[in-house]
């Protein structure tokens, strides 16, 4: 059954590829990113980088997702193999792995899953900073896609090539334009698996904050806490970072640290109801009911989407204050 489907797939792929070749003989496909790189190399990058320490995991049929993740997990210091990652990401009914689940499996392994901007230059920068990059490729044409994950572990700006671990090959060199040709159908999708506390070389503030919050939401609070600290070192006033750090500290029962984080959040974002609401909670838990009430009243006065929570917080604190001692 599988084999028959595979054969049909290959045959159809052959047909469409031949068709595409016929259509594109005139050169209708443009590869803008590799063209731009040929004209001018990105500033400040070493000419040649290869992350030889990234191990290779051989891919069995359909398992390029787990194999790619195992490689980048290992590079981030997390033990993993195709066998351990497959149950986290492989979808039998699709005979493959979805992008969202690649990110989810990364979080479940305690790593920050970060999607890069759709630029080859961003990939090169991350590799230069020591982080291997997973890319999603379409091996055929848009009409009849066969999706495939591979791991970029190096590049050579002079030769205009990337170094890649893919399928059954531990080390391949592809030209920039070769990569771009297969990569463009996924809208140049690529991702990192970052160890806690590490900020991507090409990090955008809001996207990285969201990525760390997603790690926290997935239940990896300790790891998220470390990454929030790194985020705040770079962007000290980031609201998601401050609230997230406070919530992580609170979940790990370090109430003093939680108080500090929420206080910073309320000072740098005096309009944030969430900051004052959560500050009120922590102050109440620490026994400072008068200060807690003041913070809760501020949260209620600020209104907004957190108003109903803030009202509940204030009621709970007032009830505590009214309780007989």
């Amino acid at each position, binding site marked *: 059954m599988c*084999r028959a489907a595979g*054969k049909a797939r*290959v045959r159809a*792929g*052959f047909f469409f*590829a*031949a068709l595409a*070749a016929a259509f*594109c003989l005139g*050169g209708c496909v443009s590869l803008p990113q590799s063209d731009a790189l040929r004209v001018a190399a990105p500033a400040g990058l070493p000419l040649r980088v290869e992350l030889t320490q990234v191990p290779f995991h051989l891919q069995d*049929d*359909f398992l*390029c997702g787990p194999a790619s993740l195992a490689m980048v997990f290992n590079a981030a210091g997390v033990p993993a193999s195709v066998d351990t990652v497959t149950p986290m990401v492989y*979808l*039998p*009914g*699709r*005979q*493959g*792995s*979805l*992008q*969202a689940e690649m*990110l*989810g499996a990364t*979080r*479940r392994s305690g790593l920050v899953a970060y999607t890069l901007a759709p630029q080859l230059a961003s990939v090169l920068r991350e590799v230069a900073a020591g982080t291997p990059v997973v890319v*999603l490729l379409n091996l*055929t*044409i848009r009409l009849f896609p*066969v*999706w*495939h994950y591979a791991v970029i572990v190096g590049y050579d700006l002079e030769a205009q090539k990337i170094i890649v671990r893919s399928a059954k090959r531990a080390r391949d060199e592809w030209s920039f*334009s070769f990569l771009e*040709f297969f990569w463009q159908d996924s809208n140049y999708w690529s991702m990192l698996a970052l160890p806690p506390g590490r900020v991507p070389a090409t990090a955008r503030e809001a996207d990285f*904050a*969201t990525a760390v*919050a997603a790690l*926290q939401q*997935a239940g990896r609070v300790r790891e998220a806490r470390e990454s929030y600290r790194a985020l705040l070192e770079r962007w000290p006033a980031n*609201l*998601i970072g401050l*609230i997230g750090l406070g*919530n992580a500290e*609170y979940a790990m029962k370090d109430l003093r640290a939680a108080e500090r984080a929420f206080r910073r959040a309320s000072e740098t974002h005096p309009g944030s109801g*969430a900051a004052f*609401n*959560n500050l009120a*909670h922590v102050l*109440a*838990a620490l026994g400072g009911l008068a200060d807690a009430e003041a913070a809760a009243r501020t949260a209620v006065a600020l209104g907004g*989407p*957190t108003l109903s*929570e803030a009202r*509940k*917080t204030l009621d*709970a*604190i007032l009830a*505590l204050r009214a309780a007989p*001692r």
Partner: protein
Amino acid sequence: MSTSFVRLVSRLLVVCLIGLPFQVNAGMIGTDEVVSAAQAQAARATVLGQISRADVAGQLQSLGLTPQAAKDRVAALTDVEVAKLAGQIDSLPAGAGSSGLLLLILIGVLVWWMVKK
């Protein structure tokens, strides 16, 4: 039961309640709420995602996962990701590569050469 005993128990309870450090944690605002508030354009997707979690878990089950595995996997996704998956699990890219991979790559290389020549 004597009233003094009841009074003692209720006093003990009050002391316990005040002494417990996490007695009012029910209303803590989660980081995910702050995230969705920060991304106005993502707010709709967030709502959809919250509604769709069970649906997506069900779809994952129908594609060969156990109920527990499906639940665990969905729990690792953001609301925005869940909203994107909902109803599209059958059509979104699923990276695989197959036994025909090598041949397909050869075809791809062929096309690429023809384009570049």
